[in-house]
């Protein structure tokens, strides 16, 4: 039976067969499916990366296979979500080594997009913490790969957007924490230059990101709030069990977005932070980890507020040396066009050596664009600007980039494809995204 399927941006929407599986002994059926297949987890990629002719949903393949409270090593099937892991790992003193801005992603999705978090500049991306991966190849073989075995397959799988095969299970290492709280600092920056400097000044902080006002012009162009944080120490928390969050605290969020129109509200809360306490440039406090890492997760389906046409999230990164100039250029174009969201997320990545993952040292900016007439033309224009500064676009957020841009911005693309070709020779595993970005160049 065909089902309507769409990812977080509600664009594109397709009608396809979606197959689920719960047990390892069902895996042999997967490669017998006629036509192309692509793995799909929680659909938190924004565009078409996990859409295709036939979708293999991993959501029923969700068993935790092992977890050591001594070493923090965990192995789970690819459909286990990060939210599920936090539920049991935090009370025993272990946290995700890297987490994206939502905990509703699967472990398989975290590997396939090689996700980054607010700690990228110190702790790298998700794949840096992976011990090994089990993967189902298109010839039906199940192979283990990791930094020390079948290295090329491992490297092409991390950030490879599901094109090397179906990730079955992932073993990785969690990070030890003393409490479930974050000691955070929010610092105001009056303009772009200030925020760029603030990031550099806080390079030692484990976690950092900023909300940036994309529409402000003039003297306050690029005004932002930097948020930095550290896992709070036991001594900082006056609670009986600092690893357990009182259940109602989970929902009380300083950066609180209610369900209705997110934009209006985020404007309000941003302005609140910006003006209301404007006697202070810095706010420091201790908060539960959830609102710090996942401010939007408490509003389920906030993505729907962009209406039924959906939206795209545009996330690019620029090399450090071009970041300042490039950001001025791009933000100016965006505010002139008036099409983007009011707020965007700005972050400084650290160095990263990888085959096909998104991060590189420099600033990354992510903002939402509701889909309307003229948007795709405008984004094509931005792509060129990003490319000129030596930057690139994050595949997991992409739904519309053209293959030329992709090919020119991911320097290891040929090497990546030769590995994909070895393990997935007929592109049995392929998505709408890979058909858009890769196929045109091959034919």
């Amino acid at each position, binding site marked *: *039976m065909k089902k309507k399927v769409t990812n977080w941006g509600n664009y594109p929407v397709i009608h396809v067969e979606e197959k689920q599986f*719960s047990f390892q002994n069902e895996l042999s059926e997967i490669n017998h499916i006629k036509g192309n297949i692509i793995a799909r987890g929680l659909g938190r990629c924004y565009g078409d990366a996990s859409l295709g002719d036939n979708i293999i949903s991993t959501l029923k393949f969700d*068993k*935790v296979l*092992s977890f050591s409270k001594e070493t923090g090593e965990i192995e789970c099937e690819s459909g286990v979500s990060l939210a599920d892991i936090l539920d049991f790992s935090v009370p025993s003193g272990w946290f995700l080594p890297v987490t994206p801005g939502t905990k509703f992603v699967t472990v398989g999705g975290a590997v396939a997009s090689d996700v980054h978090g607010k700690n990228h500049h110190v702790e790298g991306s998700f794949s840096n913490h992976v011990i090994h991966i089990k993967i189902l190849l298109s010839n039906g073989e199940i192979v283990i790969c990791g930094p020390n075995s079948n290295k090329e397959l491992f490297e092409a799988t991390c950030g490879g957007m599901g094109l090397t095969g179906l990730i079955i299970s992932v073993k990785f290492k969690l990070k030890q924490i003393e409490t479930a709280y974050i000691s955070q600092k929010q610092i105001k920056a009056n303009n772009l230059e200030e925020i760029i400097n603030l990031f550099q000044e806080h390079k030692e902080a484990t976690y950092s990101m900023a909300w940036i006002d994309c529409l402000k012009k003039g003297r306050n162009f690029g005004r932002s709030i930097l948020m930095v944080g550290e896992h709070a120490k036991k001594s900082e928390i006056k609670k009986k069990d600092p690893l357990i969050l009182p259940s109602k605290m989970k929902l009380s969020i300083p950066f609180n977005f209610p369900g209705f129109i997110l934009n209006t509200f985020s404007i309000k809360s941003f302005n609140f932070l910006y003006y209301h306490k404007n006697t202070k440039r810095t706010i420091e406090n201790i908060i539960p980890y959830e609102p710090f890492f996942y401010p939007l997760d408490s509003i389920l389906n906030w993505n729907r507020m962009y209406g039924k046409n959906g939206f795209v999230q545009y996330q690019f990164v620029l090399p450090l040396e071009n970041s300042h100039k490039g950001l001025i250029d791009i933000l100016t174009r965006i505010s002139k066009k008036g099409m983007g969201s009011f707020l965007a997320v700005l972050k400084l990545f650290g160095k990263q050596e990888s085959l096909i993952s998104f991060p590189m040292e420099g600033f990354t900016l992510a903002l939402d664009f509701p889909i309307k007439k003229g948007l795709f033309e405008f984004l094509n224009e931005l792509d060129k600007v990003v490319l000129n500064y030596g930057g690139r676009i994050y595949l997991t957020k992409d739904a519309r980039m053209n293959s030329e841009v992709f090919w020119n911005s991911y320097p290891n693309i040929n090497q990546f494809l030769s590995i994909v070709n070895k393990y997935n020779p007929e592109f049995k595993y392929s998505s709408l995204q890979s058909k858009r970005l890769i196929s045109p160049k091959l034919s």
Partner: protein
Amino acid sequence: MSNILILGATSDIAVATARKFAAEKHDIQLAGRNIENLLPLKTDLNVRFGVNTDVFKFDASDFKSHKPFYSGLPKKPDVVICVFGYMVEEEIAGDNWEEAEKMINVNFTGAASILNIIAKDFEEKGNGVIVGISSVAGERGRQSKLFYGSAKAGFSTFLDGLRNRTASKGVHVLSVKPGFVYTKMTSELDLPGILTAKPEQVGKAIYNGVQKRKNTIYVKWMWKWIMLIIKSIPEPLFKKMNL
């Protein structure tokens, strides 16, 4: 903390139910045809909820094995939840007695056989809860659910009778009649969202039903009324309907 035995533990409803009971800190015994498939679930429950779990081989249609299966359990359960079931398209079953027989054997005979054995033990002990997952399909016979529906009807009637037999002996019987549920069994069907429950909702409803010692639950309340209406249609009319 009690010990929960789940029969047919690989099913989607069983996984959700096991997780709900484990989250409430009950130990779980998982029984099913395929041990290999049960092992990941065993560690999953243990890691997520810190409860004791064990796995056992159990085949509902191998009636002779039921006594040794139950006597072989190292620890007898306080609650048994009978989840297994079998359904194929009735068009297939109509021409293929083996499939029809399997529906009867799994959904009715096998369930009656194992639950009778367990009920005897519970009655002797003077406590215990028996949960049977039957179906609204057993409320009235119709062509699209001919064998499946009549086997479930037998099972529902069995559960009512068992409740009557065990009530005075401190043993409680809960009949669960889920309407539609999104599971493997129904993955190829186009189910109406509003009438269809998620396995997690069924798990929660079963947990609450056991706590409150309910006799019958329908998971989604609409089903109770839908079935009342369906049951009230006069047979001369009903038999001509294409249901």
